[in-house]
């Protein structure tokens, strides 16, 4: 029984109800087998009239109906548990925020939250009901047998525990061997995928054909190792099978002899014959479902490991959807209610051109140090700088120097361990209100598996089609979007249309344009990996976008750097003195 999983199942009302229904139906159907055996034995021995078969028909019908109920309730249980776990996993990821350590293997998380949780199905809808039946039905059968025939009941009572005992003995004896073998198996099984993935490399060095022989040898080794394991692993089911069938023989033969001497009535004898196997069957079923269930347990363990992971990295926690205190202070000392310039942000519609936009902000960093958890060097070290309202600043420096960290700092993805970030003189509170003032174009913008239009209106969901088009025109995306099969309604992403790197950047810029309320522009190498022609288009669009806004642009290429009013060089997390930069420009 998986503790966390059961707690989750009991915690959600709908799940609790369905799980209870599923288990109850399974147990009830199991108990009805007793009634069925009773009636059948009675009719066959002539104790009951043939009309009792009507009762048998009823029992059969009810058992079938209970089977249906059990299956439906199991479907509800497992889908609901999976949905709940998925929801928690994804909310957890949102909490951890985009600056979560890269070691958190995004691909694995996607798999875990997707297909990975499906491994819970056999556990929830197969193993748990079988376990419930195994806990109740054998005891009920035993009670009935004791009432019917003491001698047979004793035989079953004595042999029944043999199954779990032998199972445990075989299990204990083979556990170490089996575990070692399973590990070896997964390695050997993984070998094939490994070779297939590495085939281009093997081909390059003329080793592809040779490897086919290795695959055969490994498969042979894989098979003999597996068979060695299975020979032992199947022993437990051999014991189950033997215990069940031998005890039937142990019951049937003495019963027959006692009938011969007349010390037993035929109806009881038949009842014993029909009931005895039913005591063993539930245990056999649980055993058969155990292995598949263990995969589900592994998936659950992994999920709860992610959920229980330490939340906060070093430093203060970042409120992702927090709210900013109701007002912000303008540089002239005037206090602007948050609602004013933001009025149309609330409706989610971008402000129309010409509508007032908050004045471009001044950004002041005072001795800011940023450190990522688990790294010894600071990503930014004692950085102080001032970016004036409306200024366009290019950040240059080697990769890993801290340029992106500076952007993430302004985005509120990371918080300083020391120093302050002041926006118009007020300490930055990275919440919804602050992020609504931003437009961000990352190095590798993610395009979502939805329409181009929805991708562009990511930051202003209420934007009309015309506003989306206007933004696309401004970012020079309109020209290729209209050429797509369904224009702005074309679905992007893995299963949708594929865009080139330049086109993706233009969609990302259109996102920024579709947010006219933004007064701080943050761009992370928007022209990296673009050819000269695409770069020119992006630079023009960026120049246009930066008008009247404060802009911080991480840049590599001269065209983008030329666009800036000032170049700031970052080296090893530190801002280089301006004098040194003047020399290289």
């Amino acid at each position, binding site marked *: 029984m998986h503790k966390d999983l059961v707690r989750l199942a009991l915690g959600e009302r709908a799940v609790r109800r369905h799980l209870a229904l599923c288990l109850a139906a399974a147990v009830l159907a199991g108990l009805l087998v007793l009634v069925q055996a009773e009636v059948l034995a009675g009719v066959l021995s002539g104790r009951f009239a043939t009309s009792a078969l009507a009762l048998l028909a009823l029992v059969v019908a009810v058992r079938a109906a209970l089977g249906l109920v059990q299956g439906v309730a199991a479907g509800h249980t497992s889908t609901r548990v999976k949905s709940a776990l998925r929801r928690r996993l994804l909310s957890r990821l949102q909490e951890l925020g985009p600056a979560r350590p890269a070691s958190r293997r995004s691909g694995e998380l996607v798999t875990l939250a997707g297909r990975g949780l499906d491994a819970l199905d056999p556990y929830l809808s197969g193993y748990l009901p079988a376990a419930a039946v195994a806990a109740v039905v054998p005891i009920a059968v035993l009670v009935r047998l004791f009432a019917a025939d003491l001698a047979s009941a004793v035989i079953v009572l004595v042999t029944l525990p043999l199954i779990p005992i032998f199972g445990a003995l075989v299990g204990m004896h083979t556990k170490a061997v089996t575990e070692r073998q399973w590990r070896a198996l997964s390695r050997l099984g993984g070998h094939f995928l*490994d070779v297939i993935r590495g085939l281009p490399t093997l081909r390059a060095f003329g080793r592809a054909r040779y490897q086919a022989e290795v695959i055969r040898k490994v498969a042979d080794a894989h098979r003999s190792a597996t068979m060695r394991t299975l020979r032992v692993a199947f022993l437990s089911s051999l014991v189950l099978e033997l215990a069940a069938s031998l005890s039937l023989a142990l019951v049937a033969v003495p019963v027959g002899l006692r009938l011969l001497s007349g010390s037993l009535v035929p109806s009881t004898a038949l009842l014993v014959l029909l009931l005895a196997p039913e005591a063993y069957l539930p245990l056999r079923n649980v055993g058969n479902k155990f292995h598949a269930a263990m995969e589900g347990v592994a998936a659950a363990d992994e999920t709860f490991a992610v959920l229980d992971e330490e939340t906060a990295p070093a430093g203060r926690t970042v409120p992702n959807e927090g709210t900013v205190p109701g007002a912000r202070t303008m540089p002239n000392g005037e206090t602007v209610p948050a609602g004013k310039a933001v009025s149309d942000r609330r409706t989610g519609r971008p402000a129309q051109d010409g509508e007032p936009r908050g004045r471009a902000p001044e950004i002041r960093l005072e001795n800011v140090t940023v450190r990522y958890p688990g790294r010894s060097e600071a990503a930014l070290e004692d950085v102080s700088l001032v970016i004036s309202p409306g200024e366009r600043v290019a950040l240059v420096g080697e990769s890993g120097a801290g340029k992106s960290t500076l952007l993430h700092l302004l985005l509120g993805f990371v918080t300083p361990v020391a120093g302050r970030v002041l926006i118009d003189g007020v300490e930055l509170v990275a919440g919804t209100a602050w992020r609504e003032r931003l437009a961000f174009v990352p190095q590798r913008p993610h395009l979502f598996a939805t329409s181009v239009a929805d991708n562009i209106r990511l930051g202003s969901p209420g934007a009309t089609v015309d506003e989306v088009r206007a933004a696309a025109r401004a970012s020079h995306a309109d020209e290729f979007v209209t050429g797509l099969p369904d224009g702005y309604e074309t679905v992007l992403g893995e299963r949708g249309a594929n865009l080139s790197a330049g086109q993706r950047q233009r969609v990302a810029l259109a996102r920024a344009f579709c947010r006219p309320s933004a007064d701080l522009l943050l761009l992370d190498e928007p022209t990296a990996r673009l050819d000269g022609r695409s770069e020119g288009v992006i630079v023009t669009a960026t120049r246009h976008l930066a008008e009247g806004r404060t802009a911080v642009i991480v840049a590599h290429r001269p065209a983008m750097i030329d666009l800036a009013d000032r170049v700031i060089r970052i080296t090893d997390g530190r801002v280089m003195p301006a004098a040194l930069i003047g020399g290289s420009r």
Partner: protein
Amino acid sequence: MRSMRGRLALAAAAGAAAELAGLGLIGSAAWLITRAAEQPELAALSVAIVGVRAFATSKGVLRYGERLAGHDVALRAQATTRERLYRALIPAGPLNHRGADLLSRMVDDTEAVQDLLVRCLLPAAAALVTGVAAVVLGLFLLPAAALVLLAGLVVAGVLIPAGTAAAARRWSARIAPARADQAARVADLVHGAADLAAYGAGGRALAACAEADARLAALERRQARANATATGLGALTQGLTVLAIVLVASGSGAGRVATTVLALTALVSFEPVLPMAAAGERLTGVLTALRRLREVRATPPAVTEPTAPSPLPGGPPTVEIDNLVVRHGPGRPAALDGVSLTLTPGRRVALVGPSGAGKSTLLSALMRLVEPESGTIRLNGVEIGELSSDDTRRMMTGLTQDPYVFQASLRDNLRLAGPEADEEELAEAVRRARLERWVARIGWDTVLGEDGRTVSGGQLQRLALARALLNDPPVLLLDEPAESLDEETADALMADLLDATHGHTTLLVTHRLRGLEKVDEIVVLENGAVVQRGAHRELVRVPGYYRDLWRSEALTAGR
């Protein structure tokens, strides 16, 4: 193959025998008890008593044998399938068939063969034999009851499984897109976390994901209901069949012994038959997987091998590329659009240009991984299409895009590029790839690649370079040897490399221009065509891509 068939027959026979023993056990026990109630002589029961004991013992042993034989045969079948798949993949194929996800799915698909045998065919054989035996037994006792049993078994063993198979086909057609949609939403949430946070769209994306999840869950629930219906119908069929047999038997005045034996054997004969419903459902998935594997095997390779390959021309290698055009699929823009280039012995040429310009495609064409649309590549005068592609790659190979690290020791990972190399040569390759400190730290026998976490991007790149240097082909191809290294190491490595390959015919793809003054020619590719060519000192003097890149490199690196 014949031994395979024998093993399969053996497994099927053991399975059927186990089920028959079960049938015999209940039949003889029922006979024993009902006959004993008539209080005959003890001798009349002795055969039944022996039968009960023999069937009881053999059932478990036979079942054990069946499971072992079945898994053995399934593993053998899977190994054969895997080997055939691998051999089909050896010739370079179309790029879009070789994504990482597709490869994982192919490997998963090879498991389907195992399921086909262990979960579909062998149980079906056992169910068939058991059913036939029960019906034949019934024919001897009471033909009318046998017909009832036959009808019940056909419903449970044929009609219901056919229904579940059809339902599985219909449901998988509806569930697969819903599942893909949900997976895409999850991927959006994870991979697009920064975009979502920056634009405050995380809540909406979470809601969209929950909606997709709800749609999938609703479909899964309906599928569960369909499967539960099949289970319920199976149990109903079993119960009603037994009931009908008792009615028919008592109606036709069969004796108590015959009625009981008929009823109980009928009850037990359903045991191997009822799981056929689940097998029918699984069969649909298995057949789909097998069809996908057949399609992969039927995909024609990217390049056609000559029927009678020419022998490799001897002498120092001269490679002449003339007006080469390569297209990655009909209707797509040309990846290489009329490129000409000559590599004479000892000459070193660098290819630069933006990503997507066609640099790696040119290397692929040289390695016979893609078929040119037009134009020629000649190796010492022989067109490489006339050579076997293995021979071509013996002449021209090196560091390719996306090098791979195998789950094997560091030594084996390196040695695959030079199986005959001695320790000294291995060490030399490692030293030239600037990997010796890492090797000294982790040791030659460390297994790499487990979970892909032991090797960083830079180390992988240098390992791949070491392989290329160890292989030492006549024409050395190097695709971005300094990729994913830090600046300092990259500079040092390029400097070493340019020294080490002096006088060696080399084609170098790079985006770093530092040190390129040492190569004989620089070719700038853009959109599949050569836009600039010449030596470094010439190219930095004229406006163009090269000079722009040179300046921005100087600016960002602070030189």
